[in-house]
């Protein structure tokens, strides 16, 4: 920034702060110790006039670094959001007066807390600069859609309707995907009674008619690089001709493959023409086109048994452990193919749990019963050929007996297997310079961390999050439809439309340099000092979003558009060359170093708490609102993610005489709750190295603890702080005080 730095400190006396602590003393510290050029107190800082006071100083007095010493950064955020200036918040309401008793004996330590938070706020902001976009984005807004099934076509059409261009790359010679093979689909609108047209033809027509949509058939994506707003993709046809095009964002709709029923010999598959999969039955029905459905070898069908969960919801070798969701309604639909044509045909659906949820599902189930489809809660154990058809051996769960039934045709409800490309946790990326196309890959990303989208469970490219289903680990690339999660057509259409929105949003925000979820709108991005870098690759390996590539010399290449601003790279860097304008080793380090450390025999320990800004910090705020007290010796610093914790902070803290350190991150592991996916996990591995540091300083290991904190831990989080205080009382103060 051209203009020189001018720090203003604004201390609020409202909400009882003025009554509980000596704000004048804090002001003096800000001015004398922290060199705050402008320092003001106010009775009601978040009021219109309080805010105006600050704005005036910005406008007329050149103040461009602002420390607000008042309530939590989570409160009054809008009031204290000023343009083009660096802002820090000192939390003396939720962080001090609300967690300390209003007593004479407590007043001294309470005051010390308030003064420290003042120091921390001023020293933090003085090393911040207001972030500005990198301008890396090329501002492209068009979408690349990989896969031309219902999901892909829907995404393209919906994007085009909003005015955005879309390019569909389809591997086969025609649009339509799996749904093109359906005779009919399950109804999506009331009265939910009869099978409906699949709608594929209409979609194809709409795609063809839309000037904003380009389609490449018989083509695959052979290389993808770049970032939101500036993706580059090689599109290669069967013949081998390759064209490179640029895109703003990408949607992967590569669909599913029907589970291979040959792995179900006990259900008679592969032995004859009278055991088929659901997809094969669709073909027979399509062939009959409303007429009499016959077996592939032309036999009449007077009885059909549908076996649900065939090779699904099972732990057996080669089976699918999950439920594919659509199969129950699909079997009902298919049984209707027969019943609608000839009610005399016996159709039995053999299920363990009939899953027809939602508004329409139960209507469709009832309609099936009304049409005379027989539903049996039973588990089929074996299907054998009995000469003129099949015999299905099964356990009738209701009549509680092992029995059997004959059928001219058996339909196996086998599940969906995702077309998710290569599993990057198994197949790593080629070395820089040696990159090659993979025929198994869908996207052929040249990203450092692998060629395809990460897989979550059971081989699907799903998001882990419940409230943020599109929160993928490759910014600007979204998966939709059955490649993401088993789903029926109705859900796939919703999913694809949502993915289109997210893709458009990613492109729009990339142009402005705004971060994607969860730090939406953050303009900061990581930069590094090349001269200091040792090419250790930790940042490129650890980035949860694969945002950092490596150039030929193994230097990191940051892709701002892909970055989610968690700071994990910063935490990983052993030589501390990575930083953000508004979040760096120094913004936190300065806070740590400037806390006043009383001398050993003052018996006033200091406990550093590094708290995840999304869960631990709000938990402590809410604890404060509920009047839960905790030790006056704690000094809490919110951090973007535990993953951004650099060991130096811990070492510095220990060296400068802190008596205990607590790191509070989110739950890791299978049900991780870290919104930067791996942040807290990585941090916790990293912290295992702290023990060496502790040993080298001959300090007790109990002085540093790492915890998983949930946002609901309003009792536990404060308790952990108090526990640390107790521990210190037990093991004594740190010798490192000066």
């Amino acid at each position, binding site marked *: 920034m051209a203009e020189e730095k001018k720090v203003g400190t604004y201390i609020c006396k409202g909400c009882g702060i003025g009554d509980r602590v000596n704000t004048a003393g804090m002001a003096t510290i800000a001015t004398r110790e922290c060199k705050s050029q402008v320092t003001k107190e106010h009775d009601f800082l978040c009021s219109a006039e309080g805010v105006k006071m600050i704005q005036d100083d910005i406008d007329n007095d050149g103040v461009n670094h602002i420390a607000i010493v008042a309530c939590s950064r989570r*409160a009054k955020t809008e009031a204290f959001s000023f343009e083009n200036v660096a802002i820090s918040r000192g939390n003396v309401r939720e962080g001090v007066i609300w967690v300390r008793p209003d007593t004479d004996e407590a007043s001294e330590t309470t005051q010390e807390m308030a003064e420290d938070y003042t120091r921390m706020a001023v020293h933090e902001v003085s090393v911040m600069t207001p972030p500005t976009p990198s301008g890396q984005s090329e501002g492209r807004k068009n979408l690349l859609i990989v896969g031309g099934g219902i999901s892909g076509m829907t995404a393209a059409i919906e994007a085009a309707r909003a005015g955005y261009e879309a390019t569909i790359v389809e591997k086969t010679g025609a649009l339509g995907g799996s749904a093109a093979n359906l005779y009919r689909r399950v109804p999506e609108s009331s009265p939910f009674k009869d099978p409906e047209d699949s709608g594929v033809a209409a979609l194809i027509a709409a795609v063809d008619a839309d000037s904003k949509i380009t389609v490449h058939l018989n083509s695959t994506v052979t290389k993808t690089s770049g970032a939101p707003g500036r993706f580059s993709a090689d599109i290669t046809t069967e013949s081998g001709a390759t064209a490179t095009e640029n895109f703003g964002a990408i949607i992967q709709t590569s669909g599913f493959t029907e589970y291979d029923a040959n792995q179900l010999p006990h259900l008679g598959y592969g032995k004859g023409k009278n055991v088929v999969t659901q997809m094969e039955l669709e073909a027979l029905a399509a062939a009959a086109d409303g007429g009499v459905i016959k077996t592939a070898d032309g036999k009449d069908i007077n009885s059909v048994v549908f076996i649900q969960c065939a090779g699904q919801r099972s732990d057996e070798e080669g089976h699918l452990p999950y439920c594919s969701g659509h199969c129950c309604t699909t079997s009902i639909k298919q049984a209707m193919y027969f019943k609608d044509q000839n009610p005399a045909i016996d159709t039995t659906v053999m299920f363990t749990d009939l899953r027809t949820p939602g508004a329409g599902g139960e209507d469709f189930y009832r309609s099936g019963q009304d049409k005379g489809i027989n539903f049996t809660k039973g588990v089929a154990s074996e299907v054998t050929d009995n000469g003129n058809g099949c015999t299905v051996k099964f356990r009738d769960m209701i009549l*509680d007996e092992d029995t059997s039934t004959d059928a001219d045709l058996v339909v196996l409800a086998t599940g969906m297997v995702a077309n998710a490309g290569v599993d990057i946790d198994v197949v790593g990326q080629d070395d820089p310079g040696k990159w090659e196309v993979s025929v198994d890959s869908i996207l052929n990303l040249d990203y450092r961390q692998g060629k395809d989208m990460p897989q979550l469970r059971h081989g699907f490219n799903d998001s882990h999050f*419940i*409230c943020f289903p599109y929160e993928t680990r490759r910014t600007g690339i979204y998966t939709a439809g059955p490649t993401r999660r088993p789903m029926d057509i109705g859900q796939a259409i919703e999913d694809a439309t949502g993915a289109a929105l997210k893709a458009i949003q990613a492109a729009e925000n990339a142009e402005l340099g705004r971060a994607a979820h969860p730090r939406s709108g953050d303009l900061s991005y990581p930069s590094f000092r090349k001269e200091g870098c040792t090419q250790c690759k930790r940042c490129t390996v650890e980035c949860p979003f694969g945002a950092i590539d490596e150039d030929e010399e193994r230097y990191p290449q940051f892709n701002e558009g892909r970055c989610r601003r968690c700071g994990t790279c910063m935490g990983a860097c052993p030589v501390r060359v990575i930083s953000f304008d508004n979040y760096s080793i120094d913004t936190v380090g300065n806070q740590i170093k400037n806390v006043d450390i009383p001398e050993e025999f003052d018996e006033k320990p200091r406990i550093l708490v590094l708290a995840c800004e999304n869960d631990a910090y709000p938990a402590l705020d809410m604890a404060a609102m509920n009047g839960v007290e905790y030790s006056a010796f704690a000094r809490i610093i919110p951090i973007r993610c535990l993953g951004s914790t650099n060991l130096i902070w811990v070492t510095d803290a220990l060296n400068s005489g802190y008596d205990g350190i607590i790191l509070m991150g989110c739950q890791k592991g299978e049900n991780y709750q870290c919104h930067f996916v791996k942040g807290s996990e990585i941090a916790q591995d990293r912290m295992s190295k702290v023990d060496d540091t502790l040993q080298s300083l001959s300090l007790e290991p109990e002085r540093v603890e790492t915890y998983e904190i949930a946002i609901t831990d309003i009792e536990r989080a404060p308790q952990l702080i108090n526990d640390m205080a107790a521990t210190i009382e037990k093991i004594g103060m740190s010798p490192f005080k000066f």
Partner: protein
Amino acid sequence: MSDVIATNQTILVVGGGISGMTAALEAAECGKQVILLEKSPALGGRVSQLYRYFPKLCHPTCGLEINNRRIKGNKNLRIITMSEVASISGDAGNYSVKVKVSPRYITENCTACGECGKVVETEFDDDFNYGLGKRKGAYLQHAMAYPQRYVLDPAIIGTDDASKAREACKYDAIDLDMQEEEIDITVGAIIWATGWQPYDANKIQAYGYDRIDNVITSVEFERLCDPHGPTGGKILRPSDGAEAKNVAMIQCAGSRDINHLKHCSRICCMASLKHANYVNEKYGEEGQATIYYIDIRAIDRIDDFYRKVKELPNVTFTKSKVASVVENKENGNPVLHGVDTEGYHRYANEHDLVVLAIGMEPSVPADAFPVDVKFNEEGFIEADESNGAIFAAGCSSDALDVNRAVQNATASALRAIQVVNNVAGSEG
């Protein structure tokens, strides 16, 4: 309120639950102007009343925190709480909407310092806790309430409590003369996300919700388990405040029943699996959960969750629609009568507490809807050309779990953007 600026390129979102917040944020983060209306004093809707989500057992407030932060940082988004749509007229790309805004009696000046809450005395049933607890006449709806501003219960207006509250406020944030307002806005598209409400358990007479203290609903059970809830997260039963360790969950309480809701509410099976998990979590071996079901509908990868819960030694599954619940007059225990249909086993099982996996019905019934759109027999809004630029999001469109509601809300954001972009296009 007069300063609400909206044009036919503005998107109106009705309902500030997870679906409405999502639709509003996703559109606003695409650079669109959005107005979000919420009936209650704070955003969050039903999910803010949940302790945990299935199948991850993570906390809804975690996502709420992120969404709150997204809102605070987004200048395209205008939120109006305590507001409802009075009427809608016009067509796609140009709707005039009348909005009724109820008085909060507390202005933007409020710092949520809580002084007013301390001085008022009158207490009311806390509807946020489904009446399981009490709240003051001046209150913050919940710990994460956004906007973080107190609200006065209209019932205390004109009483000493009201004046006490005003005197206690150092920031002149209490305005007892606040009146109901009606504001007219023009918008291009409307996203309807008023969500769902639990089916009235009193109507399921055979389960005695109205007669037996220890029969509660699944939404109430969530409050019991929540550390912010009326029992501080302990499973204490209503009749005597004793810990309930042997808990029964009755599925399809109102759902899949032509006498009540003919549709399957989709979420109840997983909710009960989650609840069985709570019981196991709190009491381990000492706890016992029994789920009475017709079909366990844990589809796609949620089936993993079902199988995990099935493996818990202290969770039992009984395929049976419970016939009736009667109270053991000695100890207040509900006794469940019915038949396990897998092999015909008659039972009369006594439990400490019964949780009705209550069905989901749309909050706004078809006949009370402010404008003519297409509804299905279940009362959900069905996507249809004739709806113009009014798009349902979340549980206004179907019985959905949170993940699907968000998916659907994100999709509806795009549908709304299509409309306003066309308006923008045609207006150059």
